[in-house]
């Protein structure tokens, strides 16, 4: 009997194929099977978000509504094409690396032999088998439709558990590859940073062909923990990339995230951060480049629930051709969260008449003793600056590239680790070489 047959409430039509595709995985623990079924029921009620929902108003999910992309079957392991994708990323690190292919852990492409003491780093499936308690405790109930679908179907992901007081000298790398066969890849991951630990992770997403990636990452920072998460998205032209971050910060924790969105047919990056401990600092930065008919949507939501928190956001976007970019940034300061200091800036550049960028800052302040500000702009390339560069002999096209790159660099430069920062700047330069400025 299929799932849709046993539900006694109206199922959204677009959810039905996914319900029919659901199969209990016999090898999984019972609690997980129950979680998955509960989430699937939730998804059946919700269906896909529509443009009526504020945080989804800028994305066109019509293609997904019309033609379902069902969860991928287990793959045959790493193929030559996925090896080539990995090589093409030219990742900077020589340290630990975890690679997922089509949503599943690839031991042959990963490098996990040499982990520092106090660090547990492996696939989500291994975590469920070996550390089920941690995963169960820290993974929240998924309220959003795609997160619910993710809970129902996630095939794998990664879990990083950093012990108290541990400092990781090298950045950890997580790579999501996709071979793209009209399927969806659902990955669920978790980073737990123990008290006063320090780490930098680089997550890269790349692929080929037509696919839908639905990625959910949970981040938990204990008291005084410091974590930098750099996300590089270089998905295929035909790919749909939907990613959600759910982070919770303890007292004195410092969390920095950079989303560098450089490719993919439709890319949505959502970061939800709950500042739950006093004096925690949250940095959310991002840069996107879209051209042709690409669309990108960055959604941030920072919720200050306690006093003395700090948020800094810097987002830059560039759109050319017929591309569409959108930034929606919400910062909430709750009634008792006095002395919060929050600043958000969204600056955007339009290259060419048919590109569009929407930017929508939103501050909800309920406390009365706070420092909060935001700024947003959408403009064109500065002709005076362009003339200055050309007056020194730099050809027009090269001068335009220099200006666009100069415009986009500063969010990336917020990354403290020089290896990751320089790597991401190289990827940015490479992306801009193909752009008609």
């Amino acid at each position: 009997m299929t799932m849709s047959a046993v539900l006694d409430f109206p199922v959204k039509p677009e959810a039905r194929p996914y319900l029919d595709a659901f199969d209990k995985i016999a090898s999984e623990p019972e609690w997980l099977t129950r979680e998955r079924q509960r989430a699937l029921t939730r998804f059946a009620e919700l269906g896909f978000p529509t443009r009526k929902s504020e945080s989804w108003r800028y994305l066109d999910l019509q293609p997904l509504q019309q033609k379902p992309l069902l969860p991928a079957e287990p793959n045959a392991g790493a193929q030559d094409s996925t090896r080539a994708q990995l090589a093409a990323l030219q990742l900077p690190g020589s340290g630990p690396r975890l690679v997922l292919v089509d949503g599943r852990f690839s031991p042959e492409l990963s490098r996990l032999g040499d982990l520092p003491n106090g660090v547990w780093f492996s696939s989500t499936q291994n975590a469920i088998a070996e550390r089920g308690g941690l995963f169960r405790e820290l993974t929240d109930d998924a309220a959003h439709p795609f997160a619910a679908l993710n809970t129902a179907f996630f095939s794998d992901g990664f879990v990083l558990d950093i012990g108290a007081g541990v400092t990781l000298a090298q950045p950890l790398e997580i790579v999501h590859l996709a071979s793209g066969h009209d399927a969806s890849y659902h990955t669920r991951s978790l980073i737990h940073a123990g008290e006063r630990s320090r780490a930098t992770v680089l997550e890269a997403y790349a692929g080929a062909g037509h696919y839908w990636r639905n990625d959910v990452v949970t981040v938990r920072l204990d008291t005084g923990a410091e974590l930098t998460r750099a996300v590089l998205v270089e998905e295929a032209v035909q790919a749909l990339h939907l990613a959600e971050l759910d982070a919770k910060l303890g007292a004195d924790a410092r969390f920095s995230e950079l989303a560098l969105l450089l490719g993919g047919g439709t890319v949505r990056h959502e970061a939800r951060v709950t500042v739950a401990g006093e004096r925690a600092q949250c940095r959310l930065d991002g840069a996107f480049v879209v051209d042709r008919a690409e669309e990108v949507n960055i959604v941030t939501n920072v919720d200050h629930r306690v006093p003395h928190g700090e948020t800094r956001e810097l987002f830059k976007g560039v759109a050319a051709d017929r591309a569409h970019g959108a930034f929606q940034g919400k910062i909430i300061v709750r009634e008792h969260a006095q002395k919060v200091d929050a600043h958000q800036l969204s600056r955007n550049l339009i290259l060419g008449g048919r590109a569009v960028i929407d930017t929508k800052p939103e501050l909800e302040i309920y406390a009365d003793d706070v420092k909060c500000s935001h700024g947003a702009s959408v403009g064109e390339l500065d002709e005076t600056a362009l003339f200055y560069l050309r007056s020194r002999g730099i050809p027009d096209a090269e001068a335009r590239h220099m200006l666009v790159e100069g415009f986009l660099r500063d969010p990336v430069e917020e990354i403290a680790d020089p290896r990751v920062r320089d790597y991401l700047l190289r990827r940015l330069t490479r992306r801009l070489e193909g752009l008609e400025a």
Partner: protein
Amino acid sequence: MLEIKNLHSRLEDGREILKGVDLSVGDGEVHAIMGPNGSGKSTLAAVLAGREGYEVTEGSVTYRGRDLFAMSADERAREGVFLAFQYPVEIQGVNNMYFLRAALNAQRRHRGEPELDAGQFLRVVRQKLKLLDIGDDLLQRAVNVGFSGGEKKRNEVFQMAVLEPRLAILDETDSGLDIDALRVVARGVNGLRAPDRSIVLITHYKRLLDYIEPDHVHVLQDGRIVQSADKELAAELERRGYGTFGEQPEAAAQ
């Protein structure tokens, strides 16, 4: 080097600024163009450098035997024309060193010379830095971003020293400089004087000419050159002011 004949130019709003400029600059010469505010000095510099927003309605400019207006702004620069800006532009996110190397390599490519790598470029730059009393930190910052007025002007002259143009046009490079900065700028310009290089100094004040001795001084007024003479003219302007020239155009034309 540069032959300007009956040059007329107007702004996009139709206002005519240059009303028949004639000027001939020979190889190795230093010319000073002086004049009151609004006489067209900066427009002349902008038109020569190829800035958009100015329409040339009449006349011609020949640079080293070629029609200057047939070349784009960046092509002019690669052919050796350099404009030191009155108001240097701040360029966010573009490192000064990176920018200048790109500029120098664009010119070297144009001349069929091999490009300089970062190490070779640094050696070129080190020599010039010393000459202009510029600290390394200025190079590592974004182009002109957060520079003081004096630093910006020094950076212009520094770029000129690195790019070694054939024709350098300095648009009010002396304005807003204290005497020490003025000396440094003058040292940079004087260091570039060479038989195959010409320099046009556009200035409101005689002060700069105390440090850079021109071969010729011209007075630009209401879009025309109304007087040309040797450097003594500058001293005379300082005594009498610009007003007298406008009132006696016949005398000036003699």
